[in-house]
Structures are given as C-alpha cells and as structure tokens.
C-alpha cells in the first residue's frame, strides 16, 4: 500500500539465564495495526532492520481484547497490554521490553507465577464446596456490589506489580493485585466468612500489606482503572482493626 515502515526496538532474551540484548526491526506499515499484529508480522518474516535472518520474537497473548492480561509488556516505558496498544498512537521507534519485575522466560514472555501464587495464598475466591447443599448465600447490598464490581475487573495482568517500586527482586511484597482481591472477596457476603483468615495472611510472614510504600504508581498504571490504592488503604484499616482484635482479644473469626 505504501512504503511506510514501523520502527521497533525489542529487548530480547534467549532464555531465563542469558542476558538481554536489543534488536531493531523495521516492518511494513498497514493501517490499524496494534503491537500484536506488528509482532505477528515479525513472526511471519523474522528479519531484523539490517536484513539479517533472526528468530521470531516470543510473546504471550490470548484474548486480544484486553480482558486476559496475558499480552502485557512494557511499551515505550509503560507496562500495558500489547493488544490495545495501537501503532498509530505510539511514538516511534516503538520500544518493547518484557515486564522484568517477573522472571523473563524468553523475549517478551515472563513467568507471572509470583502473582498467581499470591492469589492462592490469600484465597482469592469464595469457598462454597462442602458435603451438602448449603442453599443460596446471603444477598449483597447493591451499593456494595457496585464498588466490588470495579475490583472484580482485575485480570491479573501484572502491570501494577511492574509499576510498583516495592515489588522487586529484593522484596517479597505481594503487590497491589492480590491485595485488592482480598478486599473484593472480604466484601462478598459469603467470602467474608474467611475475612480474618485473609487479613491474617497479609499480616503474617514477609511481603505482606505493610510492604506498601504508597508510591501509588499502581493506581495510575492499572489498565482497568481499579482503585488499588483505596483497596490498600481500606485493608490497612482492616488489618489495623484485626491486629487489635488479635492482640486484645475478641471473637476474631470474622
């Protein structure tokens, strides 16, 4: 269609143990491309900007409509989803880097286990399994459902962990995503039956809620505009009260 090209710089890495390097790509422009379709173009024709044959760039993607979070990477310095990163709206050369807060597996592919393990640790679900039918659960007030719905938009993409200065190789901080899920499931009428247990998980061991340093990058970076810092502050209050209950004594099971 035209001779226009898209200039890209991609930070690549062979495997988890090797060091990273930059590679330039120059790919033919088509209208309405996003970063994913640009990466697909490289996969179709894996040639770098100097014309040398190279390996296709590895990256993760699944839903292609910003609900799964798999294709998250650092694009021009900002962690975000590559499916909704439109080429026409990006400054060139477009710089792609892996979200290096997580262990890099290959090129732009990272291992986000750290976050998924945290979600398991805090029991980010409503336990309903049992030996008999428990019947319908309690109803949730509409006003609460409305703000809880905002928290439920989290797709575990990991952008908030990448943005957080306290989530890094030197710290075990659980990060904003899993914290906000604690608030979500503690707000649920059935989930609240495990409220104290979830709060205590955040207060035990290293890397709990107290590791938050209030840089508030998470709430700025979140692609779903989840009020993460409000969640963290609300949990700060909840853990304060829980610690008083635990120390001074009370019926602290919920």
């Amino acid at each position, binding site marked *: 269609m035209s001779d226009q090209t898209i200039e890209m710089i991609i930070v690549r890495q062979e495997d988890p143990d090797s060091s990273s390097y930059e590679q330039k790509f120059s790919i033919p422009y088509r209208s309405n491309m996003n970063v994913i379709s640009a990466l697909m173009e490289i996969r179709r024709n894996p040639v770098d900007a100097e014309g040398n044959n190279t390996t296709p760039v590895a990256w993760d993607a699944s839903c292609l409509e910003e609900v799964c979070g798999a294709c998250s990477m650092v694009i021009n*310095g*900002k962690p975000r989803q590559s499916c909704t990163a439109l080429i026409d709206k990006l400054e060139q050369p477009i710089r792609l880097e892996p979200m290096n807060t997580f262990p890099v597996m290959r090129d732009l592919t990272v291992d986000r286990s750290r976050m998924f393990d945290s979600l398991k640790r805090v029991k980010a679900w409503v336990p309903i399994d049992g030996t008999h039918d428990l019947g319908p659960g309690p109803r949730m007030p509409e006003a609460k459902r409305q703000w809880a719905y905002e928290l439920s938009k989290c797709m575990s993409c990991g952008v908030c962990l990448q*943005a957080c*200065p*306290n989530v*890094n*190789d*030197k*710290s075990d901080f659980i990060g904003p995503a899993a914290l906000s899920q604690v608030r979500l499931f503690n707000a649920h009428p059935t989930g609240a039956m495990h409220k104290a247990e979830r709060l205590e998980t*955040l*207060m*035990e*061991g*290293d*890397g*709990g*809620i*107290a*590791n*938050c*340093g*209030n*840089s*508030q*990058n998470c709430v*700025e*970076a979140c692609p779903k505009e989840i*009020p993460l*810092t*409000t969640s*963290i*502050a*609300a*949990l*700060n*209050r*909840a*853990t*304060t*009260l829980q*610690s008083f209950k635990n120390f001074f004594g009370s019926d602290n099971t919920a």
Partner: protein
Amino acid sequence: MSSNREFLYRRLHSLLGVIPIGAFLIVHLTVNWFAVRGREEYNAAAAFMEALPFRYAMEIGLIFLPIIFHAVYGLYIAFQARNNTSQFGYFRNWMFRFQRISGVIVLIFITWHVWETRLAAAFGAEVNFSMMEDIVANPAALIAYIIGITATTFHFANGLWSFAVTWGITVTPRSQQIATYVSIGVFAALTFVGIRSILAFVGV
C-alpha cells in the same frame, strides 16, 4: 531482617515516626524558636529543658531508642525499593523517592547534630546560645543545618501523610488529597520555624 514480625515492625516504624519522634521534633523546633527572641531567652529555655525531671529516661525512651529503630529499619526499607520515577513521574512516586532520600539525609544530619551538641554536652560542653553560634559561624555548617532541617521537616510532613494511609485513617482518594494539602502546610510551617530559628544564631 527476615522474620514473621514484618507487619509489627512496619507498623511500629510508622507509629514511632509520629509518636514520639514527630512530637519530639515539634517540641525541639518550638524550643529553638526562643533563639529568635534573644540570647537570654534561649539560654533560659535550654536550661529549663536540661533541668526537666526524668531527663535521661525521657531521652532514652522517647528519643534515642525510637530514633535508632526508625533509622535502622528505615534504611532497610529505603534500600529495598527500586525507584522508577524516570518511568513513572507521578507526584506520589516522587514523594516516595524523596521520603527515602530525605530519610538518609536526616540520619546523617542527626548523627552529626547529636555528636556536636548532645554528645559534646555529655563530654562537658555547655549547651547554650553561644554553642550554636560557634557551630553555624562556619557557613558550611549553616548550609548543612538548613539542608538538614528542611530534610527533617519534609520527612516528617510527608511521613504524616503516609502514616494516615498506613493506619487506614485516610482511605478515599479525596481524603488522601486533603491530607496532601495538610502535609504541605505542616512542611511549610515547620520549615519556616526551623530555618528562622537557625538564622537567629547568625544574627539574622
């Protein structure tokens, strides 16, 4: 410093920064203001503070031990961060970074300040107007004091803001925004008091 008590240590760190260290800072700056009123008034105030009952108990329990814990644990916190203000140049991220930088400056400043005044007093020097006058007669020392005081008031004012978040007092973005304005006011007021007082020792 890996342990099962991180929550306790972090909350203690936050609490000690305000009570008693923050409270002590306000008392200290208030007493300093006597220098603005003149040499005699300052010496009388210093003598009054020196003559307070339970002085050593208060110094150790309300000042030395809390500051040592806050400083040591604070250093651990400061060096645990990987600052990223170049990528995320938001106001709060800068405050996060400045809080850590100012903390380190304050630690160096306080060590020097305690050495020159409190430890000097322990070795027999008399704490009075002329002691400070002699120290800040050196322009480098005066500049160091102005930087040190400003770092201290910043660290305290911004620390008040994060104290309110850490304990779950300010939860909504609105309340946190208002708390930011309050902390700016506290910073401006205390910095004025601190710098005005130190300038009194050079006759300004």
